[in-house]
């Protein structure tokens, strides 16, 4: 007999866990036990609810009350006030622009433009409960397919839905499947690519953590459609929770016979295993991934042969992304037409994005394809944090490009983004305000690719390093005339000659920032000035004598004692010795210290003398 009257859903995605969600859960257990209320309240750990910035977050049903930034100290109050007296704790609720409290999760603007397909259950069900997944029509699509459809019919539905791969390339899903179905072989494999290494991307982690059975069911549908009987989840080792959840899902499915022989009394037999990476971004590339599963170095190999012909252990293999699998069950339950009714001509359905950077609502969102960047960043994402100005957005991580304010009305679909020099990528959306130096940001993306290049082919290994060295020089203040042209030349060559997608796309952040922020490159190179005051060699600190009260704090905190003065004369920085530690800026009580773009005249003079002496 169930006396439960409240479902308390605590988000236990990695974001909220990193903010302390598990401690809060323990505290709830303790307080409810103490009050003798454990039989009235269900505590459910869910996957990521999306708004990671507000973590730890939780939703309380039946009312659907949403709490943010909950701390261990708030637990007693929630129990006392909300659970016992029925008065939701207003100060933990979201507020709208007029400071009105938002009572229910469904009224929060962050959720309103979203359409959840792959993420439908994330943050709603307990990912460790097979029953809860089944309650949301889980495994019904698989059961129906196995008992009423042929593999070809299954592929045809996917074709009609227009589903394209969510792993970055946007390759039509049905085409890969068809190739494998048409191949004859004793054994075929299906692989779920959960290597997600793009900086700024965590869609796949959240889906694996939050709704593992959905991904497993999607994989099984794919397996049936192409005649594979064995599946592998390849998940990066940095995602221990995702690994645990998917292993658990496989075990649960095996126990009740959803995995095994003659599933749903059909001829279909299937088994799945989990493999992990060990910290190599390039293993997300499908041929590299296959080598890694085989127990080797994850070096990419040239295509063709495509994995669909010669994949894992030389057998026909399909590699699909986690989110691609996550869409399948709903396509079959609600119909291909329903799915295809969302999105644009060439990009159907919805896409999950991870919003990060200088945006108010960082976190995970799912929106229809074709939504504009403006809607995505300003309506769903809540705009730029601290009311700063929007400067640029990087889509597609280190393989993608940046777009600027003038592109805010571009539709988010595979083709429109490509045309503008960016790409959909796997769904990372890194938003930057006008404090960011684009030359410096591009350098950081390039640094990532240099680190992650597997070194197998020289354009990528040597070329990227050359590009990086130039970028390094420019940000150090030693840029030369012609550097921009050299970057462009190198970039184009590397794109053309590299073996795998890493090298073929790694120059994009540099190329796209040159395209849209060429003036910043030029002022770094010619004027030796970083307008955003990020590049330390191209800016200096200065004390405003009118503001300075002569307190001497900065002088005392300066590690190289290059600040001197007196109460009467005020203080001055001896620019030549300054190491740009920024201590003076931090300690000044009256904000008299400021950052100024460009190299200080004294430093230029000294540098010139040095040069002359060297000559």
């Amino acid at each position, binding site marked *: 007999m169930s006396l439960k009257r409240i479902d308390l859903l605590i988000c236990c995605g990695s974001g909220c866990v990193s903010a302390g969600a598990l401690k809060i859960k323990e505290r709830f257990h303790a307080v409810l036990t103490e009050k003798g209320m454990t039989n009235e309240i269900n505590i459910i750990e869910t996957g990521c609810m999306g708004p990671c910035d507000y973590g730890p977050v939780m939703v309380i049903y*039946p009312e659907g009350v949403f709490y943010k930034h909950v701390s261990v100290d708030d637990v007693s109050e929630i129990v006392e006030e909300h659970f016992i007296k*029925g008065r939701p704790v207003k100060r933990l609720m979201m507020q709208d622009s007029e400071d009105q409290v938002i009572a229910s999760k469904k009224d929060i603007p962050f959720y309103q433009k979203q359409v959840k397909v792959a993420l439908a259950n994330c943050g709603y*069900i307990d990912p460790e409960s097979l*029953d*809860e997944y089944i*309650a949301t029509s889980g*495994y019904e699509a698989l059961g129906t397919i196995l008992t009423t459809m042929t593999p070809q019919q299954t592929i045809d539905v996917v074709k009609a839905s227009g589903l394209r791969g969510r792993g970055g390339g946007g390759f039509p899903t049905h085409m890969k499947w068809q190739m494998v179905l048409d191949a004859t072989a004793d054994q075929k494999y299906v692989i779920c690519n959960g290597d997600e290494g793009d900086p700024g991307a965590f869609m796949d982690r959240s889906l694996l953590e939050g709704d593992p059975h959905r991904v497993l069911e999607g994989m099984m549908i794919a397996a049936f459609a192409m005649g594979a009987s064995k599946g592998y989840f390849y998940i990066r080792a940095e995602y221990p929770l995702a690994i645990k959840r998917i292993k658990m899902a496989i075990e649960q499915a095996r126990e009740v016979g959803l995995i095994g022989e003659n599933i*749903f009394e059909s001829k279909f037999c299937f088994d799945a295993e989990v493999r992990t990476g060990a910290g190599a971004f390039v293993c997300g590339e499908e041929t590299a991934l296959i080598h890694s599963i085989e127990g080797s170095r994850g070096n990419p190999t040239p295509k063709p042969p495509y994995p669909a012909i010669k994949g894992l252990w030389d057998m026909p293999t399909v590699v699909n992304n986690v989110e691609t699998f996550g869409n399948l069950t709903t396509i079959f339950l609600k119909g291909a037409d329903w799915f295809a009714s969302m999105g644009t001509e060439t990009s159907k359905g919805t896409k999950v994005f991870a919003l990060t950077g200088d945006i108010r609502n960082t976190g995970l969102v799912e929106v229809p394809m074709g939504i504009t960047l403006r809607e995505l960043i300003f309506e769903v994402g809540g705009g730029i944090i601290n009311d700063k100005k929007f400067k640029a957005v990087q889509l597609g991580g280190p393989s993608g490009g940046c777009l600027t304010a003038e592109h805010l009305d571009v539709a988010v679909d595979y083709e429109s983004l490509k045309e503008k020099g960016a790409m959909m990528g796997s769904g990372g959306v890194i938003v930057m305000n006008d404090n960011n130096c684009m030359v410096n940001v591009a350098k950081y993306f390039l640094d990532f690719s240099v680190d992650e290049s597997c070194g197998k082919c020289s354009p990528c290994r040597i070329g990227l390093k050359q590009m990086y060295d130039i970028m390094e020089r420019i940000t150090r203040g030693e840029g030369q005339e012609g550097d921009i042209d050299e970057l462009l030349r190198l970039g184009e060559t590397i794109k053309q000659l590299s073996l795998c997608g890493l090298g073929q796309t790694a120059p994009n952040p540099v190329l796209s920032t040159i395209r849209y922020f060429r003036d910043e490159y030029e002022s770094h190179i010619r004027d030796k000035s970083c307008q955003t005051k990020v590049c330390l060699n191209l800016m200096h600190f200065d004390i405003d004598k009118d503001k300075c009260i002569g307190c001497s704090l900065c002088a005392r905190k300066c590690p190289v004692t290059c600040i001197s003065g007196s109460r009467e004369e005020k203080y001055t920085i001896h620019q030549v010795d300054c190491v740009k530690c920024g201590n003076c800026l931090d300690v000044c009580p009256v904000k008299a210290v400021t950052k100024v773009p460009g190299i200080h005249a004294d430093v230029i003079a000294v540098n010139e003398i040095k040069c002359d002496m060297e000559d």
Partner: protein
Amino acid sequence: MKTLTDLKKIREKAQEEMKLRGSNTRIKIVVGMGTSGIAMGAREVMKTFLEEIASRNLTDVLVTQTGEKGLSSMEPVVDVVEDDKPKVTYGNMTPDKVKKVIVEHIVNGRIVSDYVVATGN
């Protein structure tokens, strides 16, 4: 689990377990759990509702709570909210009265007018 029918059975049971999160409720019972309500026995009232609903296996009835409603003299106060019908408010509730409300109003749709203290909003 071997057939779609097996799956359906599990699903129905699991949905029942998750109904607090769902929207297939016909009637919502809202118990006033302010300080005075609790002082007058609202927790017992709430418990009785939960027990009765569980033992009768009423799957489309939901019990929730609210704060002080300003009817202190009539606590414990309970609202019965049904789609498309005016809200019915019962006052001075006790566990015995709850049982009667369940049988008459919730199961058979007959308002127990003796206990009613207000209707509509």
